[in-house]
């Protein structure tokens, strides 16, 4: 699960559908990234970070 991404999204008051529309992907893709079912490429990660105002480390760095 990518709780950090979900938290950042909710802090920006964006739904999955709205975030998906801004980035240009499907709602299911955002849902799958948040659930950990899909590993996005670095390009998509950067787009998500840009919209949510976070860094790659903030959202996608896996804590050991």
């Amino acid at each position: 699960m990518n709780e950090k991404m979900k938290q950042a999204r909710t802090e920006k008051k964006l739904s999955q559908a709205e975030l998906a529309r801004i980035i240009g992907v499907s709602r299911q893709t955002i849902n799958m990234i948040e659930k950990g079912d899909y590993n996005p490429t670095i390009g998509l990660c950067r787009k998500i970070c840009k919209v949510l105002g976070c860094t790659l480390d903030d959202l996608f760095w896996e804590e050991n």
Partner: protein
Amino acid sequence: MFNDERINAECGKIYSRGILLTVLITLLYAMSRTVTLVIQGSLHTVVTYTEMMILIFGIGILFVGTLRFRKNRDERIVREQHSFYKKAGKAFIVAVFGTYILTIPFTTEEMLGGQSHNHLLILLEVIGCLYLFYTFKTKEINFNYSFIAEDGSRYYRQVFLNIGGLFLCLFPPFLLASAWELTLHESWAGALTILLAYFSSSIGLSVEYFFISLVEKTSYDSMNDGRLALGTRITAVVYLVVSFSVSVMQCVYVHLVTGNLLETPNVGSVIAFVSQQKLRIEYLSFVLVGLAVCHLLSQIKKGTRLYTVCRIKMLLLSLAAIEATLTPVWYRALSDHAIRFFVNTLDPWLSFVSFIITLTLWILFVHSLVKELGLSRILWLIPVLRVAVTCINIFFVSQNMIRLGTYCQQTVEMGCLILLVIVMWRYRGLEIGDDDKSGAL
């Protein structure tokens, strides 16, 4: 701009596997028809131009793809591979349909081996639909994914634009084929038939596409309130109507073949016509069941028994479609003695095996619905009634009351389907997931 990397990657895989599936089915069909031609004593082992295009182009794409992307499989190369198969897949579809349409005037009856012109294409369309429904839904991809999130009016405007595009794309090849027919065979009737085929093909494909788009959109927009998606329920109701037509045709067919053949003029033609229409409607029912089952798949948890049963159902639907297509091909090659042997000896056993498989699947399906989803236990009536009516049918057949047996069987099967649809329509026990379909945070 819509550019979903996940969907692009999955579509690339779907296209590559789809091309492989098309090649294999075409090979099976062409080999079956060629063998039957040889058995009938025809020395011309031919394939149609469409089959040649599918085999040559399809194998070519797979060969090039395998050679080009066998090494260095990093993220960038894999993305290129998916893009290659996506473009190649679209080119493949255009080439196959284009070849089929343009070579209508040049395809001889000998090539077809007694089958109708679009026999293979209908099979590929049915298998293609089942394959796409299954792969899209299990990978969580919507049809019309690039614009399904739009509001209703924009969505349906795009759907109608796509339908218009379909009509425009199909018109030039059909017009050319019609012109060739007129030039080569000097046949106005043939040319007009090809133009009529344009309208019937375009309208048929448009209706299919519109229905699928409607089902997708209604499912996408329906609130996650614990019910089965509205699209699933709508498809189930439409399937009921189609099943009713199949049942009626089955009763008419049995009425004709068991009646006094001298009373019905041109009884052979009538029986052949009813049989052909029944097959076409059966194909439609395969597609509708596939659509409903795949929508159900997208709403239930992976790894559950119900999920497995639904996957098995999809496989059996595909096999049923292939069997329904190849059986008439093989019948043409068999002698009268062989056909009698098959109908009197083998067919009852095959029917028995088919009944056992179907009954087992029904029991597993009902068990999963009741235990895993919590649907009403009244659904257990379905397998019980099916066994009962089969026993009654066997009794009626032994008493030479075939018609009564058929009417009873068809009535009970319709009743079971109606019961299933009603129970599933009223169901409200699905787990509400964390996918914020409603737009809430």
